[in-house]
């Protein structure tokens, strides 16, 4: 069964338009902590990403090779890792492993991003902009999708 979430409207000072964010609740499970967070589903992002602070709280393995990813602010140093995660509503719960880039530059301010690779390979994602809803339907992950970033 698909899981449907509503967009979150966030008003901003005039003349800025409100933000309508496809934000979904997700549980991230690290070695130290299990955290409930709200993540932005970003169809414009190739990869999922979290800030280093969050990785530290969760207790995520950061021993992987450091590399650079390109964001709005340019190239930023990061480490790829894997985090167990789950998404649920009142009726459904889906567990999966998320490959994420941990952005090491703590001056870069951003939240939790779920990008196309990995997340979109675990779910068929439908954005219903006119209804301000996002619909997730679990699909079997592609075998060649693992750590393909």
């Amino acid at each position, binding site marked *: 069964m698909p899981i449907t979430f*509503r967009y*979150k409207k*966030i*008003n*901003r*000072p005039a003349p800025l338009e409100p*933000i309508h*964010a496809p*934000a979904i*609740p997700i*549980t991230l499970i690290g070695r130290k902590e299990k*955290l*409930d*967070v*709200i*993540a*932005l589903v*970003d169809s*414009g*992002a*190739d*990869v999922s*990403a979290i*800030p280093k*602070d*969050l990785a*530290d*709280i969760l207790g995520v393995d950061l021993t992987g090779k450091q590399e650079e*990813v*390109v*964001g*709005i*602010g340019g190239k*930023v140093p990061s480490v790829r890792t894997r985090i167990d995660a789950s998404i*649920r*509503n*009142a009726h459904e719960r889906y567990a999966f492993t998320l490959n994420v*880039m941990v*952005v090491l530059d703590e001056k*870069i*301010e*951003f*939240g*939790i*991003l779920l*990008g196309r690779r990995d997340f979109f390979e675990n779910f068929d994602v439908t954005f219903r902009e006119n209804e301000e809803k996002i619909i997730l339907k679990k699909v079997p992950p592609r075998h060649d999708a693992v750590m393909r970033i």
Partner: protein
Amino acid sequence: MAESYNFFLKADLSPFIGEWIAIADNRILSHRKSLKETYEEAKKKTTKNILLTRVPDKEEMIL
């Protein structure tokens, strides 16, 4: 998580744009620019599960 998520959907988060917020007990327990400070402060205020998020201010980092 459901209770905190419903609070998140209904709450006016405009005062917290650009900040991390921690939600539990149907309220915002803490809000800071720093995620670690937000989390640590919230942990002192509740023993329940905390829902964390950053209130986006503009385009997030597209990777």
